[in-house]
């Protein structure tokens, strides 16, 4: 239906809106979240294991960025996406779109704060004191974990926005 006002020469591939792609995207998102989570759990388990030669350990400070990122994922993906543009319709009163955008902003802020916080922790706790690599791994794993959680949230977001067009195609 969008063929008449297309911008690019290449048409949108047909598989993008299929239900299977959507399902696979949701699975992929869960897998990415799990991967990120276990990268960080690995770092904290390694810090208490016999292989950690140094006296530096993963403490609660290292957990805060991950908690922020996970909360941000939860907030962003709990929002009903169709409420974001609700101001253009007449049936939505009481500023639903405004509230939705505010909560969404909070979610994105939490997530960006988590990623930035993990970089901060890595620099301040591990790079500035110039620790060698087995200890530096705690900071690197923290950054990897937060980036993967962010990626998982992005995949889930894209996939959930795909759903609208899919249901629309069905309804027509």
């Amino acid at each position: 239906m969008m063929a008449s006002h297309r911008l690019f020469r290449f048409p949108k591939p047909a598989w993008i809106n299929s239900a299977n792609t959507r399902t696979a995207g949701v699975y992929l998102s869960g897998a990415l979240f799990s991967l990120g989570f276990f990268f960080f759990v690995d770092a904290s388990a390694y810090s208490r294991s016999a292989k950690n030669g140094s006296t530096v350990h993963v403490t609660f400070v290292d957990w805060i960025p991950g908690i922020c990122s996970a909360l941000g994922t939860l907030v962003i993906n709990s929002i009903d996406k169709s409420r974001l543009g609700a101001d253009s319709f007449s049936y939505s009163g009481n500023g639903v779109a405004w509230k939705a955008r505010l909560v969404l902003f909070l979610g994105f802020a939490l997530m960006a704060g988590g990623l930035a916080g993990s970089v901060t922790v890595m620099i301040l706790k591990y790079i500035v004191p110039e620790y060698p690599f087995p200890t530096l791994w705690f900071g690197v794993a923290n950054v990897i974990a937060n980036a993967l959680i962010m990626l998982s949230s992005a995949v889930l977001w894209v996939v959930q926005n795909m759903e609208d067009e899919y249901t629309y195609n069905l309804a027509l």
Partner: protein
Amino acid sequence: MAGLKTIIVLSFILAIGFLLVILSSALWKNYLPLLVVATYVVAPIPNWICGRAANPDDFMESSGSVLIDFGRFLTGFFVVMGIALPSLFAHCALIQYPAMIMSIVGGLLIYGTIISFTMFFQEENEF
């Protein structure tokens, strides 16, 4: 489609998977890899529960599809957890590296059995 041969082959694969996981724990007298079995048994459960709880018939109502998505998210989480957990244990010197390989392969065999079993037997009562 789901004949006797399928059941026999699937049960053999399941037995091999369990053999690998149990060997990976018992050979080193370290029973942490058994958690992999628990993970893979738990993995399809969110899908089943959310599939029951949500009504797949209404396309316009988004609440049902959200529940299904949540179940799929959890399933994806658990499947990767089954691979991530043994590698975490091996990296932190809680288990040996051969035990890690054996438990990952065994866990994948067990999960593959569960998935193909549900696929074979769901096809009959559909429609």
